[in-house]
């Protein structure tokens, strides 16, 4: 079983360093005030990168059984279903306005 991977200091500190840099970067990009859709897109891409780093290395998914990664992805898939199908309604509601 591969559940007993022992992370080296190098990996742990490296990942923490990368997270530090990404955090500073995302705050920095924030002060650039990118035009509207892009600021959120960049911020979310950075957040996903950071989250993945934590999940893959701190949470050992890289060395772990693939089933656990699958569980994590399934959680996001079902979250996506909740959001996606709800948006099918909230984004497409007709504007009904009485004429008098």
């Amino acid at each position, binding site marked *: 079983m591969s559940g007993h991977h022992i992370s080296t200091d190098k990996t742990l500190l490296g990942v923490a360093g990368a997270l530090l840099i990404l955090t500073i970067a995302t705050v920095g990009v924030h002060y650039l005030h990118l035009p509207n859709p892009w600021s959120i897109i960049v911020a979310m891409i950075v957040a996903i990168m950071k989250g993945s780093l934590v999940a893959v290395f701190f949470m050992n998914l890289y060395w772990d059984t693939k089933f656990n990664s699958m569980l994590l992805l399934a959680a996001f898939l079902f*979250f996506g279903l909740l959001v996606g199908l709800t948006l099918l309604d909230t984004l497409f509601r007709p504007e009904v306005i009485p004429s008098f």
Partner: protein
Amino acid sequence: MANHSTTSSHSRFQQHHFVDAEQQFDAAKMGMWVFLVTEILMFGGLFAAYIVYRLWYPELFVLASEELNTLWGGVNTLVLIGSSLTVAMAIKSAQLNQKRNIAINLGITLALAAIFMVIKYFEYTHKFHLGIFPGEFYTFEGIDHPKANVFFSLYYLMTGLHGIHVTIGMGLMIWLLVRSTKGHFGEEYYTPIEMTGLYWHLVDIIWIFLFPLFYLID
């Protein structure tokens, strides 16, 4: 995987219904991951509400997030990342049987979590001072949008639920710290540290998303 030999040593923490410590560890880890799935979906309800309202009132989110302090949010992000690192170090220490380091790393984690909560406390009280309360108690007049209260409801709910998780995590850290000083953990047995670690990292990941969603939009 362990073999069939009758000599397999029994850790004193092994429960009767498991065949060996290995199976017990695997089961605990898998159970923890399944539990984390439920945590993600629990936060998911709030994130979904956030997305729906953000797409309905994008201008509100830009306006309202000006009231949030990006600097302190960023500092808190770094604090949590640091605590994730120390939890990972604690697990590594256990795996290498460095019993003193387990306690030290857990202690630092606990301290960082406390710092996070203190900063959160000052952020909250500052807003209360301005009259930015959740929901119907909202009295702040600085934001020109009829639904400003909804934004701050979301803010308080999401960071509040996250804060509750941090607090629970701190309780778990204290428990681990007590057990580690009693010498319960070492290379054969460190399941509780690893499980708490997984939980703590998830709390960290959620904050990693909360931070840009609330602090980085204006």
